[in-house]
């Protein structure tokens, strides 16, 4: 019940295209949903985050879409660039708790 399911496992997108990564959850006690970007040999870095009272949040080329009724949220990367090639993790946090529950990750490759 505390899992966050992420898909796809890997993704190849052409430069300039849109990358879409999806996550789903069961636990309705989750109240914070961040997305992290991780490069090889580095720790995860926060990209963008959303709370369930908002259906969409945009920061630059990155957008989170949130569907509370379906218990799903997704990351859209517009105008994908080779520098975006990394592993992306969705995560969720239970209200009142501090730990993050992570998805299994999506390895994104943006071809030049």
């Amino acid at each position: 019940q505390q899992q966050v399911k992420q898909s796809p496992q890997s993704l190849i997108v052409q430069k300039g295209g849109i990358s879409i990564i999806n996550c789903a959850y069961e636990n309705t006690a989750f109240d914070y949903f961040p997305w992290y970007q991780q490069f090889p040999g580095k720790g995860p870095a926060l990209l963008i985050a959303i709370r369930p009272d908002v259906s969409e949040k945009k920061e630059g080329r990155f957008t989170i879409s949130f569907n509370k009724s379906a218990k799903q949220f997704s990351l859209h990367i517009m105008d994908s660039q080779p520098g975006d090639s990394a592993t992306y993790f969705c995560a969720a946090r239970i209200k009142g708790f501090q730990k993050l529950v992570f998805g299994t990750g999506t390895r994104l490759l943006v071809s030049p």
Partner: protein
Amino acid sequence: GAGVSQSPRYKVAKRGQDVALRCDPISGHVSLFWYQQALGQGPEFLTYFQNEAQLDKSGLPSDRFFAERPEGSVSTLKIQRTQQEDSAVYLCASSLGLANEQFFGPGTRLTVL
């Protein structure tokens, strides 16, 4: 320093050895977290400190794992009698406080032979 630092960056241990992994959080950050990241997987929560108090250790996989933060700053994760299944990257994160963004360090890659 500007970010969370961890040492050593790489550690190779023989099965049965004890290891100690260090985390230096961002100065002033009250909260400190340890996560374990197996190869090709997402990070999994191990334990959480607020200042020197360990408030949640529900993710520690066995009693061979022990974490401390005695002065509310630097933290050490100790693994006793290491096993091959302990091989993973151990990530430390810190945050200003409750409900704030967690900043991750680069991790320590532990390989148990």
